[in-house]
Structure formats: C-alpha cells, structure tokens
C-alpha cells in the first residue's frame, strides 16, 4: 500500500502566543516548532504500522519553506521512506490542500492521511479539501483504521457517538486519538533521517481564498473569587445570581 502522510509544523504547545507587526503576524521569536501532534502521533505512526504489517511505502509531504526541513527530518526520524516538500508558504488551507492534491494526483497513492486538525489554526480543512480535489471518499476524525486488501475499516467520531465505516481505496482519512500511540524516535532513526530522500517540488499556481487580517488576545480574567470549601451553598448562589450560568 502506497501511503502519503501530510504533516504540518506547529508551535510547541508550551509556546507563548503573541503577535507582531500591529497584530497581523504570529511572533515566531523564541518559538520552537514541532510536528503537529495529530499528524505525528496518529497519522504517521499508523501509516508506519500499516507498512510494517502489510509492506508498502510511506511518503511524508509538507508545504513549507526550506526552514521547515528540520521539522520534516523530525518526522522522518520516526519512520517513513522519503519526504516531499512543496516549496511554498502554506498561506491558507485551500492553497495547501491544492498543492498536496496536485502531487497526490500525479503520484497515485492508495491512502492519504492527515491529522484531524493543526493545533495552531485548528481548521480541520486540509483533508476534506484534498479528498474533494481527488474525488475520493473522506473519513474524518477517525480513531481506528484497519486495512484488508483494498478495503479500509474505520471508527470515526460522529455527533454524539462513534460510527464504524468501510471504504475502498483510494481514500483520504483524517486521524485522531486512539489510532496509534506516539513513538519516540531512537538514535538510529535520527541518523537515518539525515540521509533519507527529501524531494523539493515547485508549487502550482493557486489562489489564496482566505486571509488572516489580524489577531487579538482574549480579555484577561479578573481575579478569581475564593469560596470556603465548606460553603458550597454560597458557590451555587453565586453561579445563579452573579454569574447567571445555572
């Protein structure tokens, strides 16, 4: 099975979030980038498990600049045979998805995996957009994925429950918790990643559909009101009369 795993970089989860240039740009100063956790922990690791069980090939793809190769190498250290970097700034989900779809179209994969969302823009957009561009079925927010020949059996989250579904390849799947366990790369993996093929591909022309004009921060909370642990009647009274939430 030929699998393409889409990865995105995202700021380390402990990063302080702030903005520059009149609040129009994310302040990258001092920010460590990691592989977006959903892409790494679930999509990539499950792809590797499928390859280990059934054979095949796992390719990593990312849309980004040369500076993002460190993040791609991090992903290669966990596993995968090779990587592709589309040499462009991933300006919005549509732009990014169209680049990946173009590569997938001309290289024919059985399965395209993404994370369920990135932890910076939280859009949950790229996977579904790739599926539509490829005219393939899309299983979103999948927590289990089993392969038998050209049939995939998956569990996915639906509104208020879980659904067990079946699709035939080729297909696109967005991956969430439950699908696999995080793998810590070992020294051999890190060494091997340095020399694995990383192909750089020029982008195609695509219009950007959305623009993040600027950013704002949530209002700071006013001081926390402390309640005596033996007086829960007072808490209920405050939640009712002051906060008006019950």
């Amino acid at each position, binding site marked *: 099975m030929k699998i393409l795993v889409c990865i995105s970089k995202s700021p380390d989860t402990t990063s302080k979030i702030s903005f520059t240039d009149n609040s129009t740009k994310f302040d990258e100063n001092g920010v460590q980038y990691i592989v977006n956790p959903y892409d790494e922990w679930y999509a990539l690791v499950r792809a590797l498990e499928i390859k280990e069980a059934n054979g095949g090939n796992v390719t990593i793809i990312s849309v980004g600049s040369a500076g993002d190769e460190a993040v791609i190498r991090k992903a290669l250290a966990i596993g995968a045979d090779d990587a592709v970097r589309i040499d462009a700034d991933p300006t919005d989900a549509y732009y990014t998805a169209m680049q990946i779809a173009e590569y997938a179209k001309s290289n024919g994969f059985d399965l395209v995996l993404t994370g369920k969302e990135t932890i910076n823009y*939280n859009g949950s*957009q790229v996977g579904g957009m790739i599926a539509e561009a490829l005219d393939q079925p899309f299983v979103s927010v999948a927590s289990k994925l089993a392969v038998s020949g050209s049939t995939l059996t998956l569990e996915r989250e639906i509104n208020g429950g*879980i*659904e067990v579904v079946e699709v035939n390849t080729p297909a696109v799947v967005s991956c969430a918790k439950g699908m696999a366990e995080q793998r810590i790369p070992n020294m051999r993996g890190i060494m091997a990643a340095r020399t694995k093929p990383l192909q750089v591909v020029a982008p195609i022309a695509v219009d950007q*559909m959305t*623009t993040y004009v600027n950013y*704002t921060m949530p209002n700071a*909370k006013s001081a926390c009101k402390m*309640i005596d642990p033996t007086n829960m009647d007072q*808490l209920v009274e405050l939640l009712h009369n002051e906060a008006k939430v019950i």
Partner: protein
Amino acid sequence: MSVLVYINSKNGLHKSAFESVTYGKKLGDVTVITTGSLSADQLATLGNYGASKVLIDRSVEGDDDQQLTRVISSAADTCSANTIIFSHDMVAKAVAPRLSVRLKAGLISGAIGIPSSDGTVPVNVFSGKAFGHVKVNAARTIISLLPNSIQPEQFDGSCAVEDFNGNAGSAGVKVLSTKKPEGQIPLPEAELVVSAGRGLKGPENWGIVEDLAAALGAATACSRPVSDIGWRPHHEHVGQTGVAIRPNLYIAAGISGAIQHLAGVNGSKVIVVINTDPEAPFFKAADYGVIGDAFEVLPRLTEAVKKFRASSH
C-alpha cells in the same frame, strides 16, 4: 443577500441548529437545506428563528460527506447563495472543506461571532489561546460556527418547507454500525461541563463527578492523562490536543491547569476550579476557586445544587 444554512437534522433539531439559523438571519435571507426524514411540521419551527424557507432532500439518510456535498452545492446554486453556514460539528468537519473546493468558496471554520464592519469573521486560533480575524477573497463564503458562540433568537416567523432533489448520487463511505452512548449530552454542545483530572486518583472515583454532572444536567470531561491511562473515554479529553469547548460553566476538579489544558477550555464563560493546591495554575484562569479536597467538595456541591434545584422548581 441570500444565505444557505445547512442543518443536520438526523437526531432532531437542536440548539446548534437554532444558532446557525440565527447567525444566517443576521447576514441575509435564510434558506435552510437539510436531509433525512423530519416532518414538514417539525422543520417549519425553524421559521421561529428567522428561516424563510426549508429545503429537504429525503433521498439522503446518513451523513455521507460526498452526498451531502453534492446536495448542499445544488441547494446553494438553486437559491444563489453567496454565504453558506454550518455548525462546526463532526459533519461540518467532513463536508465544509469538500464544499469549499467544489464551490471555490473561502472557508472560515471555527467562527465565534458574526462578521464585523470590516468584513472579517472572528475565529479561535492556537486552540483558543488567541483569536484570528479572517477575510474571504472569493465570491462565496462558507462559515462553520462553533457551538455556543451566539444565542438563538426567536422571531414570530413562518417558513415554507419544500422537498428538494439535490442529485446526491451514491455514498462513498459505507456505515457498518453506530455506537451512541444513551442519554449523554455531546460535549462540544454542552452548556454546563463537569471535568476532572489526575487528582481524582482512579476511575473508580468518577461517581462523584457523574453525580454532580447529573444534578446539574451537565456533560462530563477530563484532562489528557486521564484519558491516556484509560480512566475515561477519549472523547472526554479536552484541551489543545483534545476537544475545544465553550460552555457557559466549566467546573474543573483535580486538574492542575497546564497550558495545553487551558487552551481547550478558556473560551468557557465561567470557570470554577476545585484543587487542594492553592498554587495550582488553574486558579489564575478561574472565576471562582475552591481550595479543598475534591472528594469532600464535589459531594457537597452536588447536595447544594440539588437543594437549589429543588427550591427553584
């Protein structure tokens, strides 16, 4: 302006549907598109929230992403809609991105408010640590609205319900079975949430969390380590790598308040923190704090809630 609102009516009409119609009404004349088997009488109630027409394609039973994309796309063409609204739920996460490609429409997902005068729409970014203001550069816009972001507004309206054939085609995904926990409130839509962390010591102690949730009519949630160790199911995990929620009330017991946890819950209107450690970082993000042992405080709070509910009804 013509606005199309997609509503998932498979499990009846819920608050998120009323929120979407209310949102659409603020932007223009609302046509609703839905699929499934609700009666015309049930669907006509959407008129009370500002819908002027409801289209229903009864040929589609499930939530297949390709079928829904085709149906919503034909409805958008039929009513020449330049804005399409979804509630940002599991179906929207599958369908809205497809529709965006099919209609060449700009997709704004996770909206938390109506467009401002400069045309930008506010969304959650960095898992709720900040807000982005997004503009669309295409002729059509799709907005996927986070549940609990606006209050449904009622009108004295009526609306027509028409059968619609959206040329759904065949489904790409075959559903084998469905597991639905009975009687539970889906976490992303819940207005009240009771959540607990590693401070609860073990899964056998969750009774006191569930008792409080039952007394309040709240959904239950948990921190990541709790679902990682298997004390609680994955879908209860809130935070940066779990579900992001915006309830009116979030009660956190035995949760330290790590930055990744806060990211998923700091959109809550009111936060109550119960923790033995006065230095727990969560108190900084809380509106009300109780320094105390969850094993004593939670049952006491449950009793207080029951007493309050009994006296106010």
